[in-house]
């Protein structure tokens, strides 16, 4: 087995385009699903039963399905509903719907770690729900949520590769295009693997950094 680095060099522009797409896709997913997942997690612990039920149904249905099935839903389904979007957007929607469900469960465990007494104290003081959420609940849940949040981000980096199966030209797709084009697999798969490893390791480093900083006074 030989390894020819010049192959990568020649293909670099198209590979880097893939890297950029992967990073954009990842950032867009996290940007969208972070607030959405927090809302779903809050709905999961809400006192309103209907809200609780709806959120639980969403989370459980989505988590039962393979990501690829949901990407097919948005990739084939949206156009057949007359919503014509780019593969990137279709993948972004699908990945956001899925990541939101998983992240909501991660965040919920953080919310549930806040002691009951805090809810009661806020009740006894007559604090309005939203004020309680932003001033008491979320700040206290944050340190507990941090670890699972970054773990989910790492999973999401890896999950973006599946977008290659619904025609998004991200890192995996661009690498595989070169594999087909040149009949050389080792170089391009190694390139993709190393870039993903860099991205996930970066997340892991961020995770330990942030986790060290967020502890309650």
């Amino acid at each position, binding site marked *: 087995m030989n390894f020819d680095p010049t192959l990568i060099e020649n293909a670099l522009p198209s590979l880097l385009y893939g890297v950029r797409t992967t990073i954009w896709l990842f950032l867009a997913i996290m940007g969208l699903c972070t607030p959405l997942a927090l809302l779903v997690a809050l709905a999961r612990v809400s006192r309103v039963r209907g809200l609780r039920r709806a959120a639980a149904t969403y989370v459980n249905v989505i988590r039962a399905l393979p990501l690829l099935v949901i990407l097919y839903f948005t990739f084939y389904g949206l156009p057949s509903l007359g919503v014509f979007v780019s593969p990137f957007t279709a993948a972004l929607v699908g990945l956001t719907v899925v990541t939101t469900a998983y992240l909501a469960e991660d965040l919920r465990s953080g919310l549930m770690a806040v002691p009951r007494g805090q809810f009661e104290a806020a009740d006894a*003081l*007559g604090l309005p729900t939203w004020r309680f959420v932003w001033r008491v609940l979320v700040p206290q849940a944050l340190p507990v949520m941090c670890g699972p949040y970054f773990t989910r981000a790492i999973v999401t980096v890896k999950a973006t590769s599946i977008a290659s199966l619904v025609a998004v030209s991200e890192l995996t797709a661009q690498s595989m295009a070169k594999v087909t084009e040149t009949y050389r697999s080792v170089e391009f798969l190694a390139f993709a693997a190393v870039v993903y490893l860099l991205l996930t390791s970066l997340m892991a480093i961020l995770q330990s950094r942030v986790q060290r900083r967020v502890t*309650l006074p």
Partner: protein
Amino acid sequence: MKDTCMTANPATPARAHDRPMLELVNLRKSFGNKTVLHGVDLKVPAGQVVSIIGASGSGKSTLLRCVNHLETPDAGSAVLIDGQRIGGPDPARVSRRDLRRRRVEIGMVFQHFNLFPNMTALENVMEAPLAHRRGTRAEIRDMAAGLLDRVGLADRMDHHPGKLSGGQQQRVAIARALAMTPKLMLFDEVTSALDPELVDDVLQVMRQLAEEGMTMLVVTHEMAFAEDVGDRVIFMADGAIHEDGTPAEVLRNPQQARTRSFLGRAMRAR
């Protein structure tokens, strides 16, 4: 159950006015099929300090928590506070506004303080007045600082709860409850989680509050406090009021066998 309970004449201490501050009529509460409160009637005049004693599980906490709707009673939720009726006949359908009013007019202090650990002592006290827009930030700050000064914590205002002793935390919690200028204060075993040497500071604050004329419902195991500071003692057993009278009557000369046996145990435990 209820018919066995003796309804002694409510105490008429010197300080009490005729104006009723709290009135509960036929308050009932059960968890599942376990009835915890069997129709409690209670009338508390303004300025009275009522100590509630009784064995573990007799429903003292539940009674207190029903008063400010931390637990939703099954019946008798309409309380009369300071002459104003809050809440309708159906406890499950209290309006948001009534609930808010009730929580604002009644302050509560918990056994485990339940301070917000992410805020300083001062921020804890300021939180509710800020939420209810009780004035400008500066005004609220001054008011909160004044309260912390009153409970002897002027030099601890910027500390987070984690950096305070249990007794200090509990005094912050009292200041926090007072910040909404409540008409009635509920205390649920507020000294039970404290080291013995820290208890007195907290009791001192409560004593001062009583002297200022606050109406107080105090669940406590501190018989000395009930005797010295309280105007009235209520003995609860099995979710009902079994004995009700002045401290001298209930603690020195209990009429009921159950009260006697409870007091015997409580005194020995001290």
